[in-house]
């Protein structure tokens, strides 16, 4: 079987810690992930073709259905969707950008997603152990997205909509760094109770 999960091979016994309402770490591989680059006219054309107003300032994201766009830089937008949508999205965007100053790159398999879920304070505290951004809910409400780093690893951080007092954070990370990141998160989340998500579905392709 192919190497699919960054969490494979991690020993739960050494990573998990007791807790009533623990911080839960899971993986969300194979998400459709495109990197959209371009000058404003290209980004605007891309947004029109996707019927999605693209985010336009640091920390912001926009969504339409399962499609999400994260602002990563002035000419850099990440487009995310459910697994398997990359071909259709690519085709649409390539057509939209045909003669415009922009580019589109498929990074679906280059990265994976580690997702932290749990009590709002605990998840944000766990994130603050490695991420230098101000993650107070005032500065980083649900829906925020940032290009940043966690410890020694570059990440895209996406705070998803969540129930009150809960937090769900996705950390996009290059696949070769994912295992290191998962272990760092486990150490950071330990005092809040930390558990690896039991994966019900098989990840075999």
């Amino acid at each position: 079987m192919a190497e699919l999960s960054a969490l494979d091979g991690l020993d739960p016994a050494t990573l998990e810690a007791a807790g009533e309402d623990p911080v839960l770490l899971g993986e969300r591989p194979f998400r459709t992930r495109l990197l959209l680059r371009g000058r404003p006219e290209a980004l605007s054309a891309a947004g029109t073709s996707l019927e999605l107003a693209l985010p336009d300032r640091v920390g912001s994201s926009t969504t339409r259905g399962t499609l999400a766009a994260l602002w990563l830089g002035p000419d850099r937008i990440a487009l995310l969707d459910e697994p398997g949508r990359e071909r259709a999205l690519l085709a649409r965007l390539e057509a939209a950008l045909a003669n415009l100053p922009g580019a589109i790159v498929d990074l679906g398999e280059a990265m994976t997603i580690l997702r932290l879920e749990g009590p709002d304070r605990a998840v944000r505290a766990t994130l603050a152990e490695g991420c230098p951004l101000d993650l107070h809910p005032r500065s980083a409400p649900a829906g925020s997205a940032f290009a940043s780093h966690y410890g020694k690893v570059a990440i895209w951080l996406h705070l998803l909509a969540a129930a009150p007092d809960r937090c769900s954070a996705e950390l996009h990370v290059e696949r070769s760094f994912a295992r290191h990141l998962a272990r760092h998160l486990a150490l950071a989340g330990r005092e809040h109770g930390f558990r690896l998500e039991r994966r019900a579905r098989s990840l075999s392709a």
Partner: protein
Amino acid sequence: MRQPFRLPSGGRIDRGRRVVFSFDGRSLAGFAGDSLAAAIMAHGVRLVGRSFKYHRPRGIFSAGPEEPNALLRVELGPGRIEPQARATMVELVPGLGAATLSGWPSVRRDLFASFDRAAAFLPAGFYYKTFFRPRGAWERVFEPAIRRLAGLGRAPERPDPDRYLHRHAHCDLLVVGGGPAGLAAARAAARAGARVILCDERPFLGGGLAMAGTCAPRIDDSPAESWVVATIAELERAPEVTLLARTTAIALHPSRHALLVERVADHRLEPDPRLPRERLWKVRPRAVLLATGRIERPLLFPDNDRPGVMLAGAARAHLARSAVLAGRDLVIATADDSAYAAALELAAAGVRIRAIADARLEPGALASAAEAAGLRVLPGWTVVGTEGRLGIRAATLARLGANGAPIEASARTLACDALLVSGGWTPAVQLWAQAGGRLAFDDARAAFLPDGPCDGVRVAGAAAGATTLGEALATARGAVAELLARLGFAIGPETGPAIDEPRPAASRPPWTLEGVWRRRPERSFVDLQNDVTAFDLGLALQEGFRAVEHVKRYTTWGMATDQGRTSGPLGLGVIAALGGRPLATLAPTTFRPPTSPVSFGALAGVHRGDLFRPIRTTPLHDWCARQGALFEDVGLWKRPTAFPRRGESLEAAVERECRTVREAVGLLDASTLAKIDVQGKDAAAFLDRIWTIDVADLPIGRARYGLVLEEDGTILDDGIVCRLGERRFLLFGTTNGAARLYAWLERWAQTEWPELEVWITPVTEQWATLALQGPKSRLLLLRAATGVDLGPREFPHMALREGTIAGIPARLRRASFSGELGFEIDVPPSRAQEVAEALAFFARDLGLAPYGLEAMHVLRLEKGYILVGHETDGTVTPLDLGLDRLLSKKKDFLGRRSLALPEHRCPERPRLVGLLPEDPHRLPEPGAQLVAEPVPQAGTKALGHVTSSARSATLARTIALGLVRGDHATPGTTLFATSAGATVEVALAAPCFYDPEGARLRG
């Protein structure tokens, strides 16, 4: 286990929890809430160490972070060792083991105590003047011996079993110091809605108010402690306030970036395995309020260092916190009013106070209170000496004459078991100075105070020079209002509480009692931790050191781990007095982070062991491991070195893998090669400026090998440019150069040529890359691949195709780094292992084997292919390597003009050559110098060096590449490759040993 110096009641300890610990092997008991120092004092233990240089007996001197003497080895379990802990800052927990650091065989019977009698021969600078020869003896003999004698403790021998974390934090206001000023400021900010972090290095908040007894001022007609408790309770309820006790601010950088070390676990009576031991907070506050308080100054007089001599405020704190007495029979010598509070509280606890010698003629109101309480106050008197061996037994007091010198005839000696001293207080301004704040000397307080602005940082309370609680709270209100207003918070006008406290009289700085310490300066200790006396400072001045920083370094005054908290102001005063210079013209020595010792664990955080740095593995890693790969580090990556079979040596495995590639087909995991996607209308134009080869005329579906040069013409990286479309390219670079190449491209695109429409994206991890190399590689792909015409003409060398392998979409490239027919195959990482399995299946009868980096190196060396970092070293140009054919003549590119410089074309430039050892079994070492004589004379300049070497099974001999001066690089020349221990005779040859026509790879 009686505790003769513990009161039966009182103190802020939990008497219900007895805590057993050990001290130098003795089992002792204290209570939860004790500091280690207080628990030791409760048993009447005086002697806690021998001094650094003279091995003089020393005792507990303080009750806080300024402690210079009571440095103990503290053990909390296997591997949990603090080699040099301040006993005043360690909280007592069950099973704690403390041990003194110095003295042999024991701290009581120290054979080296005689050093004290030889003190006259061991002045400042003694080391520099004595141990400088013979050469090398310092490192080997003297330093190890001196270190052992100095009693600095031993490093722990076992790995630290604890965990450490780092926490990033942001807030509107960081308050350093949890005394009254800090608490008041934090509360005002919290009420305004600001996000506040407050830290204090002690285990409790409240500062001086929490270390005082009945003499503490009253606030709004209640005990000050009620105010403290109420304020803390309000802060604990405030949702945006983080209170951090046991947290030391170790650094405040000029950008207001603050580093705090929180001691999370050591003090817990019941350990919680989920908690880290310490946490380093990296705080980025919008504003900082420093309420760091003040440190009491000792007095300076002969034999002022005996065990039993203690700061008066410290004795008061030990009484207030732990109900522990500094002694039962006290003499107090002061130059400040605060000692009277200590005297009154200790007297009320039943301690006999023989006399209070006050160096001032007019003490403040508290002195009258002391007299009213029946204590004997001696204005105009001071202490001039002490007696005792392992602890003080008597103190000698004398009246000060009109000239400030003690009158010998007045001297009288009083028996005592402790001497409390106070020479006034010094504001703690370390962090202010670190942050870039200026200091100015204040005559009234005889201290350096914060002066002028410092962006977003203010100081309040005693640290700002406040001498009363009322002043402290007022400065806090003012400072926090100013800071918050700048941040846009509205702060209501708040009037201070009513405070009932006496107005203190000015203190007399201890260094002005010159007549006292000048009597025996060699026994008047300025710096207790580093054993520096007033005599030493005088000697430094006499030897011509004028700058305070130089005096500090020559004498080591203020250079101990206590960072001169008690010795700094004394030393400055002595330097001023001896040099006849006003103190205001001197400046304290530079305050540098960290303010207090920090554990290595706290600095490292999680990044140790296998989390020291990320370990990157490829999608084929597990597959390679199953094939028996040995791995090596290449940057952060793990890559296979070779795949030795059972019983096979590494050398044999490499030989076999090379043969496999030359004769059949080998598989290399090339996933780590840098892959960079370049798109845009101007992509071709952009790459033409970067790469040495022509890119614009590269047809779609074809690849070209070329170089990337620095502006000076030297080689930065090499790699392949693939054209995927009219405006889209894929670049392949070296594994190690990936980040550098990407940064280089972005730099030119962003800063120099922003007008070009080009977008650059690293996509290394989007694809796994398998290299199939060898004469049977095409045959294998004919079986395994579909949808691609593999014929030599249909799929020529350096062409790109798309197809599928085992039904998995794949991108194929005909490329070779082995000199054989070869293909590189990119597949989605999630499918890479399936592809590898499929290839292995189809190659059952073809002799396919995986090969590693060692074989790859041999194969490329046989072909004379350069490896960036081996044949290049940042000084080597393409001309040196004979790669002129890669330099386009049709266009300009980075580095081209530099290559036209005559210096790059002169005959002395190095030239890449092949090296054939005369003895085909001997291997010249990479890095070996190439010289003309087998035994060169000393001073001979090398003609070049060996860059790579290998044992080639194919050629049945050793081969090497090297760089040799162009005017000595004629083929056939004999040179000698010399390295430590070996000289190998080599003949120069063309730098390609195998299939120079390239027929095999074009096959």
